[in-house]
């Protein structure tokens, strides 16, 4: 997840307030979309996927302390509206653990939601183009493009914040240097995240295609009485 690792009190007030307003609008809209009974039964799924994202962030993929974020996978599993709710939940819990500022929860929700929604959309498009058998490639490609786009959004947010008046004379932020660092180190994270996303989606699409492709039949028919299991 492209997470705004900016502490409280660094970004201009108008910027993080705007983030909260946008996030509130997105979450409110998403909550309205989740009101029906069929949607409501998926709220536990939102909780589970959010918890999965949090657990994944505490697991090292390889012993270099890199952690995956599973944003594209969350988007594929939840869809856009429930994915936005998950984005807000994860951003808030991370802030409660001291991982990211409280005032920037809104901006982090926007970033996370952008990854979830974009990842969902791109995966759908790529899966249609490449075919369901290449879900791994679709997932990996969607992840790289999504993370590149949201990294750009992150730089744009920092660009908006780079005004000298926010904190007085010492407030200047070197946007060029920040963008250079982010876009130099970022592709390493994109590649790792894409690799893990590709393996996970490839694995799940073979074992439980109904989870990845909404209208696919389960690989194994559920026993009578258990038809409710699996979506």
């Amino acid at each position: 997840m492209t997470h705004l690792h900016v502490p409280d009190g660094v970004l201009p007030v108008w910027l993080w307030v705007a983030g909260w307003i946008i996030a509130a609008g997105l979450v409110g809209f998403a909550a309205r979309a989740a009101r029906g009974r069929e949607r409501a039964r998926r709220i536990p799924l939102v909780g589970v996927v959010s918890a999965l994202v949090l657990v994944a962030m505490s697991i090292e993929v390889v012993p270099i302390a890199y952690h995956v974020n599973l944003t594209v996978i969350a988007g594929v599993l939840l869809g856009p509206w429930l994915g936005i709710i998950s984005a807000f939940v994860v951003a808030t819990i991370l802030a409660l653990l001291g991982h990211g500022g409280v005032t920037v929860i809104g901006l982090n929700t926007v970033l996370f939601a952008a990854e979830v929604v974009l990842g969902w959309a791109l995966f759908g498009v790529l899966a249609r183009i490449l075919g369901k058998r290449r879900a791994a490639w679709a997932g990996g490609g969607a992840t790289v493009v999504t993370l590149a786009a949201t990294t750009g959004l992150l730089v744009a947010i920092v660009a908006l914040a780079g005004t000298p008046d926010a904190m007085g004379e010492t407030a200047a932020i070197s946007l060029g240097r920040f963008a250079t660092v982010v876009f130099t180190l970022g592709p390493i994270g994109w590649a790792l995240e894409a690799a893990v996303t590709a393996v996970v989606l490839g694995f799940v699409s073979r074992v439980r295609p109904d989870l990845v492709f909404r209208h696919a039949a389960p690989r194994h028919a559920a026993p009578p009485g258990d038809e409710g299991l699996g979506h």
Partner: protein
Amino acid sequence: MRLADVDLAAVSGTSALHRAAPRAKLAAVACVIAAVVVTTDARAVAGLAVVLLALAAQQRLGLRPLVLSALYPAFFAVVFAWAAGAGWVFGALIVGKAVVAALAVVMLARTTPYPQVIAPLQRVLPAAVADAFLFTYRSFFLLAEKASRLARAVRLRAGVHLERPVAAVRLSGRMLGGLLIYSMDLAQRDYDVMRLRGYERRLAVAPLPSRSRATDVALLAGAFALLALTVAWRFLA
């Protein structure tokens, strides 16, 4: 990330802060965050940090986990300050703000059970969102336990080795895939169980009453005083 440790500290502690009303603690944290936002002086930020650490020490909350929790955002604040080309002064301010804000929220998290942090927010959050917070809390421990067992199984069979990164990524991905499938079934079971218990799209958490009014008053007064001093420092000094 030690959500389990934080949760254990929150439900098993006996300090005065544990007895304070969750709403008072939320308001106090909001005051500290506001002070962090307002100040532009690293010395003021250092003062806030000293006050919070002194409070934590006096309440015997355990300085080591608190400091470690604050070092994590401090690391990223250093990276951000360096990447953004901030000078030493602004850089110190950025890192200081990260530490103080983290100390405040982690002290809240370590003295207040998670559902009680969510309870006041339920009034302003849509039902779906509030319920998602609670389902996340419930699911996290189940998934963390499952992930731990999966990781142990992987270690016993082959392990993840840096010298074979492709195999490591593939193995980690399949482990996550297995955890994901388990979590999907967990979500369905959760819903079925909650429906049997009468769940109708709103989980209500009753806010805990305060067990120490004096602590609430002292906490709020202290937080307001910190905010007032910080504002005065910013605009009058």
